[in-house]
């Protein structure tokens, strides 16, 4: 049973299909989680009618998408119009072949030694579908949305790539498994690369057109942006691609900066060797750790959406080109100097100190607000 065909083709495909189905369930669940959480943030209920706490919404939405009328505008460019929702879907799904979910070799689909580069190349093709769909709809608002989206994704692609360079300098490999194994023997990369981690977080929000950067679909200006003319299942495919890309970017964030499937630093804790020692159970445990971390970053997406107001387009471009790129280049420069001086450990302290300062700023006791004139402060 252990022929090369089984080893190289059949097992990876089976694993890919399992990962694919799990991701689909996560996407559907994420839709429900996002709506419930936004309800919580905005002091309302969110969907709670279908099933227990609205959980059956996960099934009800796809069924409704399938049954809805599919309106194709008479004046649309038909071929490009159909390609629009299909194109971004393909890279968003096959990227899951390359992401290590748990300790290799059992819990990774394939291991390619330029995995990170391939993931970046695949994910950046997502912009084609959006600009093609926006143009082919023959709607001025769609066109504007598509153009804005293209300009935005292209602008944030640069800091996105540059923030990864620092990680590569430290780990010295494009193989995601090697990067994770480096992090478990040394510190997780968010400590030495705290600036890169921040840039990556901002850039991945912008790449996915999520709320502080959701100008392509700014409903107050552009109806619904590039997918104004898309209805039923085609609209669902746009959403599916967007949510899948969110999961992909969270996976990248976890793998590059937060230690992937491991739960330990400096060789202490649940490292790959410890997990391997536990056999199958250890592998599943590692995958669960990975999925938990990914879901935490998905929640951060929702948190951002509930917290930040939308940028203006010139502010967005300024942030991308005038702040993020110099910051990312500066980060590479500083990292280079620290590594060449042989002071890699010093970078951990910089990370710890900056996290400490941020925590102090966040949790500092608020000064008592003086009672507004004309209002009587409530006695407790």
């Amino acid at each position, binding site marked *: 049973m252990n022929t090369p065909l089984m080893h190289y083709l059949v097992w990876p495909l089976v694993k890919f299909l399992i990962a694919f189905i799990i991701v689909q369930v996560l996407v559907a669940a994420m839709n429900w989680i996002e709506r419930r959480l936004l309800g919580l943030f905005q002091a309302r209920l969110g969907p709670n009618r279908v099933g227990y706490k609205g959980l059956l919404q996960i099934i009800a939405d796809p069924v409704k998408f*399938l049954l809805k009328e599919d309106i*194709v505008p008479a004046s649309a460019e038909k071929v490009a119009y159909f390609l629009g929702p299909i194109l971004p879907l393909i890279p968003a799904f096959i990227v899951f072949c390359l992401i290590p979910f748990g300790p290799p070799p059992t819990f990774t689909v394939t291991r390619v030694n330029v995995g990170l580069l391939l993931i970046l190349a695949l994910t950046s093709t997502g912009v084609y579908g959006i600009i093609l769909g926006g143009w082919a709809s023959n709607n001025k608002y769609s066109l504007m949305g598509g153009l804005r989206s293209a300009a935005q994704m292209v602008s944030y692609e640069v800091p996105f*790539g540059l923030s990864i*360079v620092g990680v590569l300098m430290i780990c010295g490999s494009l193989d995601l498994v090697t990067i994770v194994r480096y992090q478990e023997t040394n510190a997780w990369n968010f400590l030495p690369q705290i600036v890169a981690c921040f840039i990556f977080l901002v850039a991945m929000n912008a790449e996915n057109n999520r709320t502080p950067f959701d100008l392509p679909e700014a409903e107050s200006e552009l109806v619904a942006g590039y997918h104004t003319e898309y209805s039923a299942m085609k609209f669902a495919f746009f959403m599916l691609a967007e949510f899948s890309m969110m999961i992909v970017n969270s996976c990248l964030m976890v793998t590059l900066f937060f230690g992937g499937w491991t739960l330990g630093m400096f060789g202490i804790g649940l490292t790959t060797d410890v997990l391997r020692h536990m056999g199958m159970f250890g592998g599943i445990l590692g995958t669960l750790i990975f999925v938990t971390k990914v879901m935490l970053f998905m929640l951060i997406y929702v948190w951002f959406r509930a917290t930040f107001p939308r940028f203006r387009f010139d502010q967005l471009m300024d942030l991308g080109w005038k702040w993020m790129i110099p910051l990312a280049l500066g980060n590479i420069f500083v990292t280079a100097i620290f590594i060449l001086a042989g002071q890699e450990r010093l970078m951990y302290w910089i990370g710890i100190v900056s996290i400490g300062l941020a925590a102090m700023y966040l949790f500092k006791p608020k000064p008592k607000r003086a009672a507004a004139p004309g209002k009587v402060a409530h006695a407790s």
Partner: protein
Amino acid sequence: MANYSVLLIAALIVISVPVLTLFIITPLIRASRPGKVKLEPYECGIAPTSTAFDHRFSVRYFLIAVLFIVFDVETVFLFPWAIRFKQLGWFGAAEMAVFLAILLVGYFYAWRRKVLSWV
């Protein structure tokens, strides 16, 4: 190569999902009642006066695209250098500093010419 062939077959499987749903499953079960007004582009309820295909847009989108190509090639050039950074040492760092300095001249030129500011 075997590792990459999995990607190719996975791509074929993934393509079949939207193609099957869009062209085979949904046409069988969905409602369909097209109308003249329904098939017009939705531009806030006002009948469109011209097509969007010959709609003009700002030249800045092109400038951003050109700048992107420069910086993305730079990023790709940085990747192999970053992987071998520890072996290359000071010499590699100096080489890359020269390359980045040349690039930054262009960057600041674009900044001065107000390509980067969107107003």
